[in-house]
């Protein structure tokens, strides 16, 4: 039995950055003080969360409820408490989010100053608010509180997505809200209501801890499964209703987790500044979606009922479909951030599939992928952002030889990309290993060791996806370090004939041919066309000239057009040493986070994450992870 301790710390963790909002806005005239508030809030948040970690690992749970405020009662509405509870699964997400925010705060400062972005105060304030709501999601004790914070997260991240205030940004922001706030929110709220009603149908005699005459209705995690199971067994409601509810909740949270086919808000949201993409893709939003799905499977329906409904196979199949399709699409993207977006959609589905396997190793692997992917993906996005700030290059086809200009950044990119492909000694290998074990162990009626056909398919899908990761990340790595500006393969590889097509920027050696505005490709190896209809915009500037833009110097302030050529300057990329390639504000976070990804791959047992996920998996499934 877990010990529940009343404590103000969960609330403190959530509110500390809400407090920072006021301070950030108040110091809008003094940039360094403003940035300092962000960093301090992040450190304070991490400290509060970390202080709860030893207790949680020991089996304690920290609970704050509204009743702890003098004069208020716990109950918020219809018997549902407004409460925050730090349990093991919640701590996994909270530790990750708060730790990564510390470094994201530094990176944001470097990025926004490097591009002289407008509305920085609004940006930092919204950032702080998002982290507040993200921790609210992590610590939510029941579905309703989680729904509240979920919607709040969508709202406060809208100004971040639409930050640029261009038409494209606004469209992307609207799409983002339409999918996550309305679509996802409607599904989650509907599912919550149905759960409340369904659990209320149970006979109090069947549910532990409920007196006769009391209502069994509940939406609290960990307490829903029992009445739900009783109702299911008694046949008091149609099985179809359970399936529909599961689907609603899973898809509602899955929208934010960018599961296909509800993923298309994510690539469009790439129009946001890169730290936002990093936040969206590693720290808060998509992880909260995956976290929500984990809660649904592990704490709402719980493995027994999920398996009885066979929904685990359906969910895992959807996830497997999702990660394969996303990998296919990623192969065709020229814009680096979009390629990373589809990679994210793919990797998030790993988490969902791992959890849906319902065997201890699979659940552990899926949950371990939450921090593993976060570290790797954040590194990749930070690298993409640094490249954008320093060289204004967004497209892979223009990055040949960029390793000379940005050695440290591209090396970190290479390491993180290797981790995504599942190369050992980097975080991705550990989670993939456990998920593969879990797939094989997903037994149906077959004898131990004989995987069901479903398990075999899922394992194969994981293997194939790993190889596809190699296929779409390696070209970026090799073009950066090993290809020359004037002799390289045209990218993306799949758009050109077998054997590759030689392309050249025409920048080396022959000075007379260089273009004054720098970076305009002489022979672009083909048109930079994109696939899905709405993405033409950012690539359609062959032939445009930016007369006011000289490559290499940073901008006078003011709103600038994000649609840059980028690319190699005349004379080729300038060889730069790691110390000078960019500001320390961006390089430090990149280095720390890629080191974290490597440490997670070498000694995951020493970093609390592995222990946490093993304990969560074993508690939820009732089995042992050890093979």
């Amino acid at each position, binding site marked *: 039995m877990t010990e529940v301790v009343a404590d103000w710390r969960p609330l403190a963790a959530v509110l500390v950055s809400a407090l920072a909002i006021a301070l950030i806005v108040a110091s809008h005239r003094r940039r360094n003080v403003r940035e300092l508030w962000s960093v301090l809030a992040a450190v304070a948040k991490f400290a509060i969360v970390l202080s709860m970690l030893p207790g949680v690992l020991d089996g304690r749970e920290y609970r704050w409820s509204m009743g702890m405020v003098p004069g208020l009662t716990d109950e918020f509405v219809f018997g549902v408490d407004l409460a925050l509870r730090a349990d093991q699964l919640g701590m996994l997400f909270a530790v990750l989010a708060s730790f990564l925010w510390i470094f994201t705060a530094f990176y944001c400062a470097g990025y926004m100053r490097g591009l002289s972005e407008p509305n920085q105060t609004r940006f930092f304030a919204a950032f702080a608010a998002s982290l507040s709501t993200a921790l609210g999601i992590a610590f939510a004790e029941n579905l309703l509180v989680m729904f509240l914070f979920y919607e709040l997260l969508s709202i406060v991240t809208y100004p971040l997505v639409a930050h640029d205030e261009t038409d494209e940004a606004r469209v992307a922001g609207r799409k983002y809200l*339409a999918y996550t706030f309305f679509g996802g929110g409607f599904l989650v709220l509907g599912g919550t209501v149905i759960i409340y009603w369904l659990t209320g149908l149970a006979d109090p005699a069947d549910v532990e801890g409920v007196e006769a005459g009391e209502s069994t209705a509940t939406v609290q995690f960990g307490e829903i499964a029992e009445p739900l199971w009783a109702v299911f067994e008694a046949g008091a*409601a*149609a099985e*179809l*209703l359970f399936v*529909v509810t599961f689907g609603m909740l899973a898809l509602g949270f899955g929208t934010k987790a960018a599961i296909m*086919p509800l993923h*298309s808000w994510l690539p469009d949201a790439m129009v946001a500044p890169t730290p936002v993409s990093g936040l969206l893709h590693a720290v808060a939003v998509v992880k909260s979606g995956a976290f929500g799905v984990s809660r649904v499977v592990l704490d709402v329906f719980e493995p027994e009922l999920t398996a009885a409904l066979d929904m685990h196979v359906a969910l895992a199949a959807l996830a497997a479909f999702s990660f394969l*399709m996303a990998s*296919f*699409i990623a*192969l*065709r993207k020229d814009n680096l951030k979009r390629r990373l977006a589809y990679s994210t959609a793919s990797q998030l589905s790993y988490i969902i599939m791992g959890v849906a396997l319902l065997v201890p*190793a699979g659940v552990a692997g899926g949950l371990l992928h939450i921090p593993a992917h976060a570290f790797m993906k954040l590194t990749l996005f930070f690298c993409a952002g640094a490249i954008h700030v320093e060289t204004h290059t967004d497209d892979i086809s223009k990055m040949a030889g960029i390793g000379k200009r940005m050695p440290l950044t591209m090396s970190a990119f290479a390491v993180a990309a*290797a981790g995504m*492909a*599942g*190369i*050992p*000694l980097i975080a991705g*290998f*550990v989670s993939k*290993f456990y998920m*593969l*074990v879990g797939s*094989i162990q997903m037994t149906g009626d077959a004898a*131990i*060791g*004989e*995987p069901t056909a479903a398990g075999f398919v899922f*394992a*194969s899908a994981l*293997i194939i996806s*790993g*190889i596809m990761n*190699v*296929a779409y990340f*390696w*070209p970026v790595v*090799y073009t950066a*370090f*090993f*290809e*020359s500006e004037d*002799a390289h*393969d045209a990218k993306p590889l*799949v758009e050109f004939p*077998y*054997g*590759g097509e030689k392309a050249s920027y025409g920048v080396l050696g022959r000075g007379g041919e260089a273009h004054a505005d720098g970076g305009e490709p002489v022979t672009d190896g083909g048109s930079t066309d994109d*696939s*899905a*209809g*709405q993405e033409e915009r950012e690539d359609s500037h062959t032939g445009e000239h930016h007369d006011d833009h000289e490559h290499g110097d940073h901008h006078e302030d003011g709103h600038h057009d994000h649609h840059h050529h980028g690319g190699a300057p005349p004379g080729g990329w300038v060889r730069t040493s790691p110390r000078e390639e960019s500001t320390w504000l961006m390089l430090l976070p990149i280095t720390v986070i890629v080191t974290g990804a490597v440490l997670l791959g070498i000694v*995951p*047992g020493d970093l609390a994450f*592995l222990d946490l996920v093993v304990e969560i998996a074993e508690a939820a499934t009732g089995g042992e*992870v*050890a*093979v």
Partner: protein
Amino acid sequence: MTELEALAVAPPAFVVLVAAIAAAFLPRLYGHALGALATLWVLAVALFAPAGEHWAVEFMGFDVVFFQVDGLSQLIGLAAGLLATAAVVYAYSSDAPRVMTAFALAYVGCTTGLIFSGDWLTLIVWWELMAVTSTLLVWHHGGEAVRAGYRYAIAHGIGGSLLLFAVIWHLAAGGGLGLEGGIDAGSLTPLSGVGIEATAPAILAAVGIGVNCGFVGLHTWLPDTYPRPHVAASVFLSVFTTKTGAYVLLQAFPEGSMLLAYMGGAMAVYGVVFALLQHDMRALLSYHIMAQVGYMTAGIGLVAAGSSAGSVGAMMHAFNNVLFKALLFMACGVVVYRTGIDDLYELGGLWKKMPLTAGAFGLGALSITAVPPFNGFISKGMILDAADTGATYANLTGGNELVWWMLFIGAIGTFLSFIKLGFYVFLHGEYDGIVTDATRGQSAAMLSVGGACLVIGLPGVWQQVTGVALASADVTAIDPAIAVDNFNPYSTGHLLDAAVLLTVSVVAFPLVRRALYRIGHVRDVEAVLNPLVFYSGKVGVYAVTETFGAIDRAGIRFVRLCYWVGSHPVVVFQRVSRRLPRGLRPAFVDGPAAPDGGQPSRLYIRAGIGLTVLVLAVILTLVLALTL
């Protein structure tokens, strides 16, 4: 602790990896010197470190053995350490850039880690890292090597993933992580077909390891990649991936399988046929790697025929191959380095101007063609012996004669191709340009390796090396009676075979050489396989992206339609009601609204009782169906 125990303190892989990092930053001389010292350390560990598990740790939540010394690892480690040292010296004197040597040393380090690993998890970790470091080594050269390196990475990614799948399946089925017993969890039901029973993990492991070994059909990366990078890089590449592939194959299949024996025979024949047709020197040698690994595969497979000598022969052959294959790459590398020419038909008569290189080549060629008393003669003899025995194996007709003949034909082909290579490069005609012989470092490297090839084959010495191979637990577990005395490579039968091979080849070569020249360049299976993979991938990508694009556009159109419906309800209602049958059509009061729906509030609708009841009944039915 004693000096010997000091050798077991740190896994040798770490020593080499540290040297690799240092080599990237230090000046060339110091970096290479440090690298050579690190590889000598590996040699010392292989020779002198006490046997046993030296570093059992917990990794990723599993208990693994990171550093273990046993007979097999000593044997392969010995060859690896010796050759790596020579290769570093060769690289230094071939103007290898320091970053290239750093990558090469990292590759050697990962190989060392694999050789001395004590369980499957450690092994697969090093296996994948070997693929990554060798890819970097290939890429470093730039130019054509980059795209070839990408193909190489994908091929090895597939192989590594399949092996990982096999290891995990074996683990999840209760087989554990230990290396003993290979990959064949007893609790699984084997799949039978083609007269052979194999469990799914075993099949996956065979294909996965087969990529590294160069099984027929999985081999196309070999001639695609090895000829392209720097000559010193080719030396490193030529030995480590493929020979450790054979080593891992033996670990996975200690009891062999006739399927493997046949694959080995097929590889031997296929490899030499294509080698004979090559123009590029290093491509010829690459196909030969395939043929030679075919011998090893056959040896491993033949254990199933009751001959455990096969695996001993296979490992001896791996040991010898590391030495003479690298020597051949070194010699041809010197020719490329000095002349800049890859095509053997454009060279000739180099023995006069490059006698040292020609001599080194000769040593390597005599070893690979199994001429006594070179080392190749010993190990090839052992494998052919293994193929000769096995009359007890009842499942296949004709015993193992088929395998024996395939291996013998392979031997003839080997002879022919090396006569061809030596003839066209060193003997035939005159070379017009100005060339100097190998540099001092190159010569030292080549001659030391060549000398080793000669010495190891000598009577008295080969028994020592075989004894080391026999000390591995797996071999003696299968056949406790086996001992060095069971082997007799210098028997009259073997010497006669060697004489026959030599005569046949020397006679046949002048007859076929012109025909070979005229056949020109024959495309290998990669001409079909590579475009197939590429275009099916391209079709897949386009299909998925266009489908999703279409769905997305349809979705947007639908949303726009909904917006339009929401803002023009009157028009919509009118259009819809116009399509209903007359009896159900609602009556409009106040006449039709303007076509653009500009007066939404003026619409008064009266639906008849029938329509109202129908609509209500349909809605109620739906609600009831859902909730019941």
